[in-house]
């Protein structure tokens, strides 16, 4: 396939995503309007009278009919305006650009942790199927996926911070005495490194460890299982037998030939796990006071902050589409046999 075909494929994929995005926009709009409670009343403040509630309602555009509100929302969207979050008082776009890196940084590290544990476990289990190693691996990863993340998180805070005192206080992205590094990527660890400031890097990393492990533990299972399955399949294939028969070293066979060929299904799972994590770290963020988009979404939903909920869902959906696209592209790069149409 040449570059032109690839471009076509990417465009095709993006076009395919359009109906989903439209669906998301409509469903989110209806869902937020179906939330009980009147945001105007909530945000009018404690001693508001009927008049001031009405003023708020007008200023939020809630006095208009649903179709009108929807039209306003759509036209705003078209100009890239996501509206203003009433609960934080800032434009939703600004909130998202500040909070998304926080969530992404956490998710990436969690994924890294998860991969570091799950891949060796999966390989070990696949090379010794149905032995105690295999069973142990199975029980361990299943246990990880069986606990609610907020429970694991709170328990880790209790143990490592409160009792042992080895973890830094669960105060979000940086401990109190540190200031955030000059914003370039808004990933604190990377920004600190770019700034050559290792102390802040260490501090940012230390804050990340507990929430990342909490999140990572929950995603061990799919990754380890897929690794095991893919490896088993590859190991029983002809070319591995040939490689073995031709006297290559065991580790070479395992890591160079087998593992590389097992990568494809692992990559697919990785994509699924990543999007699942981004959506599910809402609870972890709440436990660790993490200023990410998840905690923002929870608060927004509880107080019926329409613009914030809509902006959050839309951002997540677009991320999801882009992620899938990336995986597809990665696929074609790794394996030229993968076809064009989806």
């Amino acid at each position, binding site marked *: 396939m040449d570059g032109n075909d690839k471009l076509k494929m990417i465009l095709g994929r993006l076009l395919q*995503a359009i*109906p*989903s*995005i439209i*669906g*998301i926009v409509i*469903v989110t709009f209806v*869902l*937020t309007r*179906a*939330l*009980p409670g009147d945001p105007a009343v909530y945000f009018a403040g404690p001693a508001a009278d009927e008049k001031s509630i009405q003023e708020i309602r007008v200023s939020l555009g809630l006095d208009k009919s649903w179709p009108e509100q929807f039209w306003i929302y759509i036209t705003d969207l078209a100009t890239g305006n996501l509206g203003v979050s009433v609960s934080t008082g800032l434009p939703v776009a600004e909130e998202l650009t500040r909070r998304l890196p926080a969530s992404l940084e956490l998710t990436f590290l969690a994924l890294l942790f998860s991969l570091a544990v799950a891949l060796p476990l999966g390989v070990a289990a696949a090379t010794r199927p*149905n032995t105690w190693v295999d*069973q142990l691996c*199975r*029980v361990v990863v*299943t*246990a990880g*996926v*069986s*606990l*609610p*993340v*907020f*429970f694991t998180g*709170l*328990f880790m805070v*209790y143990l490592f911070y*409160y009792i042992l005192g080895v973890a830094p206080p669960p105060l979000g992205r940086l401990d109190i005495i540190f200031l955030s590094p000059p914003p370039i990527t808004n990933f604190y660890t990377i920004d600190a490194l770019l700034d050559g400031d290792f102390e802040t890097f260490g501090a940012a990393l230390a804050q990340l460890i507990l929430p990342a492990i909490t999140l990572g533990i929950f995603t061990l*299972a799919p990754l380890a*299982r*897929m690794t*095991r*399955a893919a490896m*088993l399949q590859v190991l029983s294939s002809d070319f591995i037998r040939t490689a073995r028969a031709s006297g290559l070293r065991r580790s070479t066979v395992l890591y160079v030939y087998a593992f590389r060929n097992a990568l494809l299904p692992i990559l697919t799972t990785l994509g699924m796990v990543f999007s*699942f994590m*981004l*959506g*599910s770290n*809402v*609870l972890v963020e*709440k436990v660790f006071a993490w200023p990410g988009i*998840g905690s923002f*979404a*929870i608060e927004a*939903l*509880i107080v019926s902050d329409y613009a914030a*909920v809509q902006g*959050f*869902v839309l951002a*997540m*959906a677009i991320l*999801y*589409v882009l992620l899938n696209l990336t995986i597809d592209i990665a696929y074609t790069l790794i394996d030229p046999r993968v076809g064009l149409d989806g």
Partner: protein
Amino acid sequence: MREFLKHLKYILTENPVTLFAGALFVLLVLAALFGPFLVPYDPMQSNSALSLKPPSLDHWFGTDQLGRDVFSRIIVATRLDLAIAVSAVAISFVIGSLLGSLAGFYGGWADRLVGRMTDTIMAFPLFVLAMGIVAAMGNTVENIVYATAIINLPFYARVSRTEVNIRRSADFVLAARLAGNSSLRLLAMHIYPNTLPPLMVQVSLNMGWAILNAAGLSFIGLGVRPPTAEWGIMVAEGAGFIVSGEWWLALFPGAALMLAVFTFNLLGDGLRDLIDPRRRT
């Protein structure tokens, strides 16, 4: 059938973990059926003299803020939690697999419609979608079930679409078609039953997930309404007491929750072995 039993026996003896999971499952079902008759205390009865007592011989798992017996509450909650899991999964299984098989069988616009619908749901951050549904419709058990069912739907639709699609032109289907069976009959009698095994694996995995989902909703205050005993809400409320030293409030319901999810997940693995030994993962 004999063949199947033999295979079952083989799986169970070959794989002690699956045997263990089977035993746990039986235990859970027994607790759900007979639990309310067996518990030592009324799970709703408060007792001001006994508030926040640590585990003892009288109260094996201690008591909560209102002096209610935690052990009794955990046992009684089994029924509700299993009910939530079973009904949520049943709904998404039935609707999802129906939509999926129709899409896979007929193709064309039906396929596209179902495909776009599942894409849309999948593109949502799932937990937030569940939150939104429960917040909009009110936090009752039924709504938690519906929300969980909706976010699980795409998985079933996708799996059954693929399975039906593969079998649409399989030899035995062609043979049945030649024998004069109508399309719908073909789908219902010949193709659909064959898609069930891979779906069953998904079912057992999702049961655990449904319970966790309900627990997560409880944690942000959108769980079942008090004073109902439910594991998720007990862990969520107990979590606030960990730092102050009343660890039993979160630990025991947490353990029950974990045990149930664990059982379902292991069972799912075992089921997969049973259906197709080569696909075991």
